């Protein structure tokens, strides 16, 4: 089976990671699926994307292509990239994958061709709480959940190292208004006042320049001496980072107002890092809706109290999150993939194992 994945930008972001993880799952489960990937624009992530393919020797399952040759593919997966319809004649071969938690980036759903094969979301909660309301009723029987999952990338030669003497409160991902990073800074500021000086804030990812100047913000909050920033790290190193966070008894905190799945949180949990997530629909399935791991967005004091609770019960809660994470595995994805193929032009035979 040969499919084309189309995405607007090559960054070091969630969609790119999803596509790469799928290639690894196809390889791991011996499925005869090859994904060609077309990016309309390289926004700096393409080199990391290619390195990942090379690093895990995924050439049989994934390649970056520079043209859209419709006839070569059984299916075309458009990841929030409606521009693909300008390049494709038979739109019934297109599967629209909606991963964007940004409402304005999903506006295109109202105007996609009526005959697309499926509309896919990476999680049940996102499908039911967001997508179903935003698509035309004509698509009602073609909505499908192709779940995100975790697959370990911890095959690097970098030994995890203990380097800090304090515990990281960690966030990995884009920092903007939807991700609500300022609330995380507020939480940390109160933590510094109320708790012992045992923590620092570790922010890893892109800061949207129009959202905030991180340096000015942490200066105003007077926490600059306990805030560490790193630019996005390559895909294959995320597990190494979370292993290190675990080694430091760190906690992953996401105050996000909108997620399509919460992949970074899942990656943290899969590395035994306890999480504290904002109480939004998409976060709930990840943590089994366990109140120990969620707080009401805006309730800074609840968040601080939960951080303290997690810290006090660190070992037990790290075991618990890893158990929650275990069910989001590649086998679960492959099962859904087969179901998708079976229900889409009866393509199941084209992706049978080698």
């Amino acid at each position, binding site marked *: 089976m040969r499919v084309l994945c189309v995405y607007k930008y090559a960054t070091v972001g969630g969609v790119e990671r999803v596509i790469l993880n799928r290639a690894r799952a196809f390889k791991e489960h011996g499925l005869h699926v090859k994904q060609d990937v077309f990016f309309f624009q390289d926004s700096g992530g393409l080199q990391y994307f290619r390195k990942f393919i090379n690093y895990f020797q995924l050439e049989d399952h994934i390649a970056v292509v520079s043209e859209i040759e419709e006839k070569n593919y059984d299916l075309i997966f458009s990841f929030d990239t409606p521009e693909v319809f300008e390049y494709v004649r038979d739109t019934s071969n297109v599967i629209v994958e909606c991963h964007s938690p940004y409402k304005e980036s999903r506006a295109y759903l109202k105007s996609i061709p009526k005959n697309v094969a499926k509309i896919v979301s990476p999680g049940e909660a996102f499908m039911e709480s967001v997508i179903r309301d935003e698509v035309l009723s004509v698509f009602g029987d073609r909505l499908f959940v192709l779940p995100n999952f975790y697959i370990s990338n911890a095959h*690097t030669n970098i030994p995890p190292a203990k380097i800090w003497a304090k515990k990281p409160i960690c966030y990995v991902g884009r920092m903007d208004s939807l991700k609500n990073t300022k609330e995380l800074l507020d939480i940390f500021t109160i933590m510094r006042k109320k708790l012992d000086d045992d923590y620092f804030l570790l922010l890893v990812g892109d800061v949207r320049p129009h959202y905030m100047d991180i340096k000015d913000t942490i200066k105003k909050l007077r926490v600059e001496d306990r805030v560490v920033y790193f630019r996005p790290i390559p895909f294959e190193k995320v597990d190494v980072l979370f292993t290190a966070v675990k080694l430091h008894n760190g906690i992953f905190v996401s105050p996000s107002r909108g997620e399509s799945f919460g992949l970074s949180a899942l990656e943290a949990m899969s590395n035994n890092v306890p999480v504290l997530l904002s109480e939004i629909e998409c976060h709930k399935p990840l943590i089994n809706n366990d109140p120990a791991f969620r707080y009401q967005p805006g309730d800074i004091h609840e968040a601080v109290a939960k951080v303290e609770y997690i810290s006090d019960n660190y070992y037990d809660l790290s075991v618990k999150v890893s158990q929650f994470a275990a069910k989001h595995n590649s086998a679960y994805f492959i099962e859904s993939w087969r179901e998708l193929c079976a229900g889409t032009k009866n393509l199941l035979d084209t992706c049978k194992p080698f």
Partner: protein
Amino acid sequence: MILTAIRRLIKAWKQYGLVATLRLISYRLKSDLVGRNTHLGGIAAEMYNELLRKHQSGEIQGIAIIPSAFEFDELYNQRTINLAKYLSGKGYGVIYVAWQWHRGEVLQKNYQYVYKNVIQVPLYSFSETYFQLKIFSEINNKKYLIMLPAKIFYDLLFFMKEHCFDVYYDIMDDWECFHKAGQAPWYNKSIEEAIVLNANRITAVSTSLVRKFSHLRTDIGCVGNGFCSELLGAPKIALADIREDAGINIGYFGHLTDAWFDWQLLFELLEKHKNVHLNIIGYGEPNEVRKKAQKYDNLNLVGKISPRELREYADHWHVAIIPFKKLELSEAVDPIKIYEYLYLDLPVVATGIPHLKDYPYVEVVDNNSELLYNSIVKQYEKKLGNEVDYSVISSFLSDKTWDKRFGELFETDFLSALYKEEV
């Protein structure tokens, strides 16, 4: 407008010389940034472009930014200068950022190649036009070294990280203690702690400094100071003969501020023991010390000399001293001079720096003039009795060259490895 431009060029010519002015003209002709940059930022940009071209031609393999409290002087045995030379030798283009106390402070060597592939850029020109460093985006191997934990360098830290510079903080001194002693007015504890937490790799010159920041980092490497035999000339020159008057020649070189230099102790020593003849080379002594010194026949305040002249003085010494007050500040230092003294075959008596006791032919005593004298006599007798075995010193110094030291500075670190391609 033309007259203004000519006036600016003449001013630049007078201040920075012909070569830098020609660079400025070249930059102005090529750049569309006129009006957005200061003209001095323009000169810096033109020099960055030269480094970029050197990288494109394969002449250099990376870029390193090294801020320093001093102007570059090839002959000066200072840590940052030696680091710039070391990185030049390793194939880096080095942007050597020379400290300015204020924007208008004129330095002698700005916008010049001060060493092979090392350019000196003044602090304010560097910090106000840092965005020009984006031109190095195609270069993977980039280092931003913070040698002074000043806010002006912290302010660039996130930018450097975003633009793929590996950040190093090398703790050369206990800056907090310096600040308390009236030095380093720019110091801010929060800023230093922010740098400690954020840097990819941290090193300190002494175990005491490693301990000081152990509440923040557990991976601080201890990389002491070193020496450069090329600067010092032939080893083993110190005097092993008896003076005609049977006196003892002792010597010191370095900074002389009474913030840590124990003048009181030395005056007591010289007062009580006229057979001790002390040569002091350096600067920074208070006026009252200079006045008082005139009363002592056995004290010679030499002043500042060129590093090349050092051996002409040390040639006549029997014993070297490091008479520091017993302070937190002193405990943190790893004085460069200790390696130079030993290289020159001088046994040493020190006060205030306990960890030096582990070095060969170094005795550390309390700040007491009688104990100091007794130790000087003991070292003097060793020297004259041929009991100073230079092979022991050689062995000790063998891994204390700057090259060996800086090799440790750039050992692989976890955070940099996160971004590096694995083999």
